[in-house]
């Protein structure tokens, strides 16, 4: 061990390494000392004890019950849940936008293709924060006031205060409906497996999408009907200056989700477009020559191959989307960063809070890349 250290070939590189380790440790120690000094001079505590102290600030939008008498740790949890919630919702919506616009970009119809292209070029070349501020400050602020709220569906109101909609309250027996839904999921999986086996044996295929939808809706619905409709609805009603009752998507939340989905959707649309264009034309022509109907060429031939290029690129976009959700702070939606920012303002424990932020974002990104790797494996070229 020691002898190889001093061989002329390794000596220089090892010495450099040693020097660098020394410099790194020395630098870190110096930073540590000056940080300690600074923290003491500013009367800032260290450590994570503050997480159990009372937060003392209200949070405008929370998925779990929260009072300002709850602890900092709990407030941060509210923020983490909000971040995850918006991130998942944005990912779903951005994917829908991206797929629709992306397929529209390669449409045979020149008009639709140009409209989609224009959308992508406008949205991609503007800062995302500008889009968020515009949606929040201009588009949503331009909605009618509470008094003139628009009733989109019966019981669903859109106004400057957000989107109010009826809240479903499960009653006794609703558990059966939930269980029926689980059973329906199981049935669908079984059916898909059986259909695949049947197709391998006989070559005949089933309209899986419609069958699956039918099972997933009809089974729970019939149980719901048999149990006597065990759900009551809490409708929002205009009382005084605002709605009471029902559930609500606040404007901050709406702006964040709409803005991020539209913006990132444009990037995903580009991935979808380039993915489809990357599939060679011969695939399309060969399938058509075999008499495969156009809708099935797209679904069964083009898309599975296109997904090979789409998925890796889109993984990066999902990761960016999650990170972009931190822009909530600019429009006042209480995500993890915005709540953490309030905490830093109150007790100055920036190092700890920023550490927690980084940890959470790094873990979310890790989960995304693991999930997308699984998806990627599934669609990769199987070479024999």
């Amino acid at each position, binding site marked *: 061990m020691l002898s190889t250290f001093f061989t002329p070939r390794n000596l220089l*590189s090892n010495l*450099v*390494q040693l020097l*660098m*380790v020394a410099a*790194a440790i020395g630098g870190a120690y*110096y*930073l540590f000392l*000056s*940080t300690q*000094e*600074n*923290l003491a*001079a*500013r009367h800032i505590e260290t450590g994570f004890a503050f997480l159990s102290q009372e937060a003392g600030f209200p949070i405008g939008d929370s998925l779990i019950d929260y009072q300002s008498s709850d602890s900092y740790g709990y407030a941060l949890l509210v923020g983490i849940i909000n971040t995850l919630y918006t991130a998942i919702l944005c990912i779903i919506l951005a994917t829908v936008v991206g797929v629709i616009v992306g397929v529209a970009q390669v*449409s*045979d*119809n*020149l*008009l*639709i293709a140009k*409209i989609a292209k224009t959308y992508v*070029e*406008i949205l*991609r*070349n*503007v*800062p*995302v*924060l*500008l889009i968020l*501020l*515009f949606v929040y*400050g*201009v588009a949503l*602020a331009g909605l009618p006031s509470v008094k003139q709220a628009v009733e989109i569906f019966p019981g669903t109101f859109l106004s400057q205060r957000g989107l109010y909609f009826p809240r479903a309250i499960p009653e006794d027996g609703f558990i059966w409906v939930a269980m029926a839904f689980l059973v329906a999921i199981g049935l669908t999986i079984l059916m898909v497996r059986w259909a695949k086996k049947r197709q391998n044996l006989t070559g005949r295929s089933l309209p899986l999408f419609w069958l699956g939808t039918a099972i997933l809706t009809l089974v729970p619905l019939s149980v719901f009907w048999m149990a006597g409709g065990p759900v009551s609805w809490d409708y929002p009603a205009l009382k005084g200056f605002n709605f009471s009752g029902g559930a609500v998507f606040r404007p901050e939340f709406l702006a964040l989700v709409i803005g991020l989905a539209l913006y990132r959707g444009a990037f995903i649309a580009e991935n979808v477009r380039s993915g489809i264009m990357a599939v060679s034309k011969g695939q399309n022509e060969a399938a058509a020559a075999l008499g495969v109907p156009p809708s099935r060429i797209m679904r069964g031939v083009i898309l599975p191959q296109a997904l090979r290029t789409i998925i890796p690129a889109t993984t990066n976009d999902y990761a960016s989307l999650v*990170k*972009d959700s*931190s*822009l909530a*702070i*600019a429009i006042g939606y209480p995500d993890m*960063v915005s709540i953490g*920012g309030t905490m*830093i303002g109150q007790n100055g424990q*920036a*190092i700890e809070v*920023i550490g927690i*932020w*980084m940890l959470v*974002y*790094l873990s979310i*990104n890790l989960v995304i890349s693991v999930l997308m790797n699984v998806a990627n494996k599934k669609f990769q070229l199987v070479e024999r």
Partner: protein
Amino acid sequence: MTIIFQPSPDQPAPPTQRGVIKWLRDHFFSSVKNTILTFLGVGIILAIIPPLLDWFVLNATFVGNADECRAAGGACWSFVQAQFRLFMIGSYPQELAWRPIAAGLLLLALFIATARQLMPGKVAVVFWLLLPLPIYWLVGGGFGLESVDTSKWGGLLLTLVLSVVGILVSVPLGILLALGRRSNIKLIKGLCIALIETVRGVPLVTILFMASIMLPLFLPSGMEIGILYRVQIGIILFSSAYIAEVVRGGLQGVESGQSEAAASLGLHPWVTMLFIILPQALTKVLPPLIGRCIALLKDTSLVIVVGLLDFLGISKAASQDPEWLGFDAEAFVFCALIYWILCFGLSRYGNSLEKRGYAAYR
């Protein structure tokens, strides 16, 4: 007597199979589905264009005060005119406005000189690397120029300073990080990987928070760095990590034969890297590097989270002016337009480089 067969001239294609009609049929009415899509597209255009045209031009006010604007109901472009200086340079002193303009012209001149290849590449690289110095000197003052406090920098000026200096400093740093990631020395490699992956894993907002709140805690007492410089450091750090990954892609794309050939000629590894590997790698990744420039230009707008008034921040603040209260839409649209022109122009330039690059390799 022989009869020579004379083919009669071809009949023209039937009217439905040529010219405009065929083009229309092929692209808009080739099938039932296509026809439905065409009507859908026409519907979308009719729903969007007329109201926008009304707002932008027909009902818009180009000259006049706030009350005339409100009466007209359309866009209030006189508001943008009145606040134009604010949009461009924030609260930078007006009598010194020539300095940021000079800095901008310098940037433009260098850009044009590079794009038109008016000077050798190596000279251009040196000029670009030195550019942050005159920019900060012209805008900030010192060395013979009256100094202007960084708190007065704002608007498009601040956005451009942050992003141009950010990109120019982060390219060499990113190259160093990318080389560090390929280093044989494990410690350097580990540090570089940790830095790159951590920075890429977290949002820019948290890095800006770090720069604005955490950085002062690390500094030895008595040493202070202004908020603008701290934010600039944060942006450089953020951008370097992404550029490192782009450069790494380029480095992987240079065949190993190149470095083997250089080694067999007896070139020192550093010379090989600097004059043989890096130029090829960077040429390859020029388009994605320009993509990073665009991303950074857009990302600098996040500095409003830590209280700097960049172009977007000024646009948000301009409509708070009591005289022009409530014209946020105009401010945002103007802001979006300028950003769009800059970003779209850059991306077009990137595309043309890509095409030229491919042509050169063929």
